């Protein structure tokens, strides 16, 4: 039969088939795993999928596809009936048939010319040999055979049955075995004769709909469109124009069956066990031919029109035993089918309709479509509004309408983007197969774990990540995961785990490929690098382990002991790296020898529309995707000299203690002065270019003497009309994977959502652009590729060194850094308050302060808040009189108290040592120089005790009552200032205190049995041994298991908190929050550690 030339139908079939085949591989593998204990639901699911493909293919005249799926279906049927054990061999055969099936469907037009006899033979072979393998099966089989022999002679079992209409017209030739299979379990065989025109087209159906409907309730055996029988014009009145025959079986009774497929009963026939057809009803007008044509096996009397309902349903059941013959004899019967395919060659060599086999359509949730529809409707309404208001020149109406357009557009955009989103699971599941096959090939035992299949990504990205991921998985399988014996020796469990996981984070999709294999040995990488000789040995020696491991992303690098078939030859990770970079993603690797390797991939959600920053470089506008932006920095001219440094050839920006490589965009882009001159010597932008070029060389050239620098600055100011532009640098800090760097641009323009357009092929090989876009004014602009820029400038190495150096520096800095709030009371007197103690800061009017019975209060959140002034307690200058002042609110004894100050200056992280002697007085803890001023560190509790002694007394009694007074606390703190503070308030609360100045001292003090420590308060950052290490040391000893250890920190929300808690620290407290500290100390002394006593 020729292939049906209906593009729409073919396309639909292709898509549905693809959908059907999607999960099959994984299912096959599951079936294999379960072995004899088959999960019939699963087998049925696969069976149905293959069956649907067969049905569709048969209908469309794709005979080869039909035949192959038919053979697969037979094998599956045996598995389903427990007549065949799904051994790895069987499944492998099925899988390879599936591969071919997939190829056939991808190139369906040429499918009929493909020779699939090998697959069919293989499938038959596995189906046959398995049966006698199991004894019980054999017994069963012989039993059924005995029965079947009783019913019919053996030769008839594998015969071909012709299904013939009562009119004598042959419709199908089908293997009897298939028919009987279909008629099993009380199902009744029906033949339905649709009229393509009246029954399908006019009812707005497609034949595929019909097939689907049938499959929902029954089993499709065969279907075809009978083009040959299309009559001449004369016959038109009596015959259906194009008959579409469907042979199927269902348990539904003849009275209901026609309703199922929405067909007049007289167009349906019931087929009895002798394969004779009986119409379910009289044709209304059609002159029925009562004489049936001669049938191949016509020994029975001719069929009369029987009332449909009267046909006993049980009849086909009687045929059941016949339907379970050994599969062996059934097989040869099918020989004819595959042979039929080549014969059709000539017929199918017509002009092929021009259908692209790539998936060009997309399934969209109807809800989403409705949303789109609604939005489109709204857009139309708004347009009307816009036009109306425009004509009336109604300004406020216009504004409204414009706002609505803005809103609807973004919603529309979002909805349309959603239609493109697809779950990543479709990519992940295909790795089931890859891992399965490779484990076999390599003799490794690997289990694939998949997480986050439902994470959605743009269609284009989904399509593009397949290859890089395959490569990574193969790489892990081949190089990462060890052979079973190696794993056993290393005491690692089998099977090895390969994990694919996806999750959303910060507007990006993260994909991790993790294995628990051998990991990458930086030393091996190092040797290899030295061997390759491409990079300086000195440079290699300087590399950190992480850097070395990352070298596998370099072209032509492989650590495998030998090149294997599986993971290619050297073209590997570099391809992955560049492919993912092209998608706007980044890759990083983390590896520990003996433990495993994790590859982190970050991808944007979509590539089509991206929020971007538009910037100006040399008069041209460029876009940088927001995802790559870290921050924008402006360096005023006065600071240029201090903050921009030069090391070797690189310019570096000093940013919060870190050094950041910076480059001029104009330098990367090689914007030459002569470039514009040649084209338009007169443009203003031209002169400006020169100036900026010179300016660029200023910072990039080695700094000579300061005097010269000044001269240059002056010269610039003198010649340039745009002083403001000249005086400062705009730096865009961007992130390219693991690297942050700064781009110097002329101006920052706007932030816009841009639509990415590809650049023409003439720009291939230029890595600095990610594409182009069209800006609001209709002009084209280029999108900068931050990855490409960084590689063009070769920024990588510089950064690594800096990070490590700066990390050390940072660590040093963060030691005992205290977040302090700087305030003024009198204009020239500066105070500091530990930020951790402050709940809130409120701005109030001086006139709102009330004085009641000697206390200052203010109405605040429905109650009165007690206020203190610093000068009430300490001998300092009185507060500056101002209309608006600030209240610093902090908790005290379960209430809130406010301290009045006149001005908030800043919040700083200070590491300066505090002088406890010079300015010591009530309400002041000590002093230090902060921001060039002598600053008094306020003691909020001291102020309160001075202003409201009764409150403090009350509080003290309360605490003392709670404690038994005899507990001993060990305080470990390296700063004597804090040590004294903490010691002071714990002792005054009635505890015995032992002190230590660092972790080692602390541990020793704790281990000393004479001290009899009940609880430990420790700082985290300390010299020699920090609080976490000390805790680890103590927790390792059993007798400290029940002793609570509380950490005291100066910065709230420290990132190290988790590390500390993992080490066994019970709670994290803020150093000078004495109330909380005392409360928790008391709590832990009373209740012990949770889970201990």
């Amino acid at each position, binding site marked *: 039969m020729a292939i049906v030339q209906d593009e729409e139908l073919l396309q639909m079939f292709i898509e549905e088939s693809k959908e059907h085949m999607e999960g099959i591989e994984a299912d096959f593998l599951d079936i294999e795993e379960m072995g004899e204990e088959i999960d019939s639901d699963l087998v049925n699911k696969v069976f149905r999928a293959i069956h649907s493909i067969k049905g569709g293919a048969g209908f469309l005249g794709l005979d080869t596809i039909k035949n192959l799926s038919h053979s697969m279906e037979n094998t599956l049927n045996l598995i389903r009936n427990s007549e065949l054990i799904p051994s790895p061999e069987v499944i492998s055969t099925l899988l390879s048939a599936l591969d071919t099936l997939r190829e056939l469907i991808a190139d369906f037009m040429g499918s009929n010319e493909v020779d699939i006899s090998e697959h069919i033979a293989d499938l038959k072979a596995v189906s046959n040999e398995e049966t006698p393998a199991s004894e019980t099966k054999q017994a069963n089989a012989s039993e059924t055979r005995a029965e079947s022999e009783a019913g019919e002679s053996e030769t008839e079992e594998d015969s071909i049955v012709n299904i013939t209409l009562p009119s004598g017209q042959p419709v199908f030739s089908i293997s009897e075995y298939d028919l009987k299979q279909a008629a099993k379990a009380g199902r009744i065989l029906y033949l339905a004769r649709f009229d393509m025109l009246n029954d399908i087209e006019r009812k707005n159906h497609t034949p595929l709909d019909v097939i689907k409907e049938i499959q929902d309730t029954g089993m499709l055996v065969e279907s075809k469109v009978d083009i040959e029988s299309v009559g001449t014009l004369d016959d038109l009145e009596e015959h259906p124009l194009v008959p579409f025959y469907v042979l199927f079986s269902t348990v539904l009774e003849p009275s209901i069956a026609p309703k199922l497929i929405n067909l007049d009963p007289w167009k349906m026939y019931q087929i009895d066990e002798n394969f004779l057809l009986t119409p379910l009803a009289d044709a209304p007008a059609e002159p029925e031919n009562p004489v049936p044509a001669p049938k191949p096996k016509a020994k029975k009397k001719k069929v009369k029109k029987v009332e449909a309902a009267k046909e006993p349903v049980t009849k086909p059941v009687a045929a059941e035993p016949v339907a379970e013959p050994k599969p062996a004899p059934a097989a040869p019967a099918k020989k004819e089918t595959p042979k039929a395919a080549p014969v059709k060659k000539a017929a199918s060599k017509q002009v092929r309709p021009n259908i692209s086999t790539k998936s060009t359509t997309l399934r969209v949730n109807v809800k989403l479509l409705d949303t789109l529809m609604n939005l489109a409707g709204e857009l139309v309404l708004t347009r009307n509004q816009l036009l109306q208001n425009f004509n009336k020149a109604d300004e406020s109406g216009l504004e409204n309408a414009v706002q609505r357009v803005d809103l609807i557009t973004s919603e529309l955009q979002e909805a349309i983007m959603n239609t493109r989103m697809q779950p990543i699971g479709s990519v992940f599941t295909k790795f089931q197969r890859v891992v399965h096959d490779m484990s076999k090939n390599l003799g490794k035992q690997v289990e694939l774990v998949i997480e986050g299949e439902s994470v959605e990504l743009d269609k284009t990205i989904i399509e593009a990540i397949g290859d890089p991921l395959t490569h990574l998985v193969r790489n892990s399988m081949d190089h990462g995961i060890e052979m079973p014996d190696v794993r056993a020796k290393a005491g690692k469990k089998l099977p090895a785990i390969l994990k694919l996981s996806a999750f959303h984070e910060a507007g990006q999709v993260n994909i991790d490929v993790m294995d628990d294999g051998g990991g990458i040995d930086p030393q091996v990488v190092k040797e290899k690098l030295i061997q390759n000789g491409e990079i300086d040995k000195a440079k290699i020696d300087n590399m950190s382990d992480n850097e070395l491991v990352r070298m596998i992303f370099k072209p032509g690098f492989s650590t495998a002991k030998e090149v294997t078939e599986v993971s290619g030859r050297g073209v590997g990770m570099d391809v992955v790296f560049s492919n993912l970079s092209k998608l706007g993603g980044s890759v990083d690797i983390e590896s520990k020898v003996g433990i495993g390797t994790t590859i982190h991939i970050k991808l944007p959600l979509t590539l089509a529309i991206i929020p971007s920053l538009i910037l100006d470089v040399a008069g041209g506008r460029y876009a940088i995707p927001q995802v790559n932006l870290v921050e924008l920095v402006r360096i005023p001219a006065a600071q240029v000299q201090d903050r921009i440094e030069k090391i070797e050839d690189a310019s570096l920006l000093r940013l919060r203690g870190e050094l950041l490589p910076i480059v001029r965009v104009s330098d990367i882009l090689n914007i030459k002065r002569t470039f514009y001159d040649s084209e338009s010597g007169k443009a203003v932008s031209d002169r400006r270019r020169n100036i900026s070029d010179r300016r660029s060389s200023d910072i990039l050239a080695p700094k000579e003497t300061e005097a010269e620098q000044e001269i240059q600055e002056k010269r610039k100011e003198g010649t340039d009309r745009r002083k403001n532009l000249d005086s400062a640098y705009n730096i865009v800090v961007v992130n390219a994977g693991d690297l942050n760097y700064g781009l110097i641009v002329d101006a920052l323009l706007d932030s816009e959502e841009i639509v990415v357009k590809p*650049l023409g092929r003439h720009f291939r090989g230029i890595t600095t652009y990610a594409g182009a876009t069209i800006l609001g004014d209709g002009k084209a602009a280029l999108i900068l590729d931050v990855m490409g820029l960084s590689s063009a400038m070769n920024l990588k190495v510089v950064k690594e060194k800096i990070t490590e150096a700066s990390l050390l520096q940072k660590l040093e800095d963060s030691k005992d850094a205290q977040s302090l709030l700087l305030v003024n009371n009198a204009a020239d007197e500066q105070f500091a308050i530990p930020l951790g103690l402050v709940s809130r800061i409120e701005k109030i009017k001086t006139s709102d302060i009330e004085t009641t019975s000697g206390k200052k209060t203010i109405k605040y959140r429905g109650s009165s808040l007690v206020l203190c002034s610093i000068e009430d307690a300490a001998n300092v200058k009185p507060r500056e009189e101002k209309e608006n002042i600030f209240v610093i609110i902090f908790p005290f004894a379960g209430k809130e108290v406010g301290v009045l100050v006149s001005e908030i200056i800043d919040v700083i992280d200070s590491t300066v040592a505090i002088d406890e002697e010079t300015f010591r007085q009530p309400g002041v803890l000590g002093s230090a120089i902060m921001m060039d001023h002598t600053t008094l560190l306020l003691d909020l509790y001291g102020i309160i005790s001075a202003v409201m002694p009764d409150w403090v007394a009350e509080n003290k009694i309360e605490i003392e009552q709670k404690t038994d007074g005899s507990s001993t606390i060990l305080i470990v703190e390296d700063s004597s200032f804090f040590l004294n503070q903490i010691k002071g308030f714990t002792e005054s609360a009635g505890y015995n205190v032992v002190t230590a100045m660092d972790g080692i001292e602390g541990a020793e003090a704790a281990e000393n049995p004479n001290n009899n420590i009940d609880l430990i308060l420790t700082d985290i950052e300390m010299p020699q041994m920090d609080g976490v290490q000390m805790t680890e040391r103590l927790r390792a000893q059993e007798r400290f298991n029940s002793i609570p250890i509380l950490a005291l920190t100066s910065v709230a929300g420290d990132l190290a908190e988790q590390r500390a808690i993992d080490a066994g620290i019970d709670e994290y407290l803020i150093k000078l929050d004495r109330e909380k500290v005392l409360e928790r100390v008391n709590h832990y002394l009373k209740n012990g550690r949770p889970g201990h006593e």
Partner: protein
Amino acid sequence: MSVKKTSSGIQELSIFEVGPITCALSIQDIQEINKHLEMTRVANAPEYIRGISNLRGTIITVIDMRIKFGLEPKEFDENTRIVVVKNHDEMLGLLVDRMLDVLNVPAEELEPTPSNISGVAGRYFSGIYKMKSSLAALLNISEILSLNE
């Protein structure tokens, strides 16, 4: 675009000028002819690329024919036109100095490129059309747009 293809019947040729060279291009190769489009320079691009332009939502690469022919670039003026062609499924613009005419040319009046026209521009021509007073060089678009410089 090649002589062979047009060896029978009448062909419509669009005639334009690039510097001193009169060029011809079959109008079947031409999508449209534009007046001045806003041009965006692309730094680091090959010299013959004048820039990119927004053609109703599509970014097109604009090629400066003067530079292709080894001439000095020229400012846009009243007569400057961009001839938009399609090649490898991509729209590109050819920057030319002036459009002259559209002529119906019988195929037999097209002649192969004389061997003495060689040098820089020679390989960009696929034939010659003799007009009344001068010659027009039939452009070989795929050679002009090829990436091998």
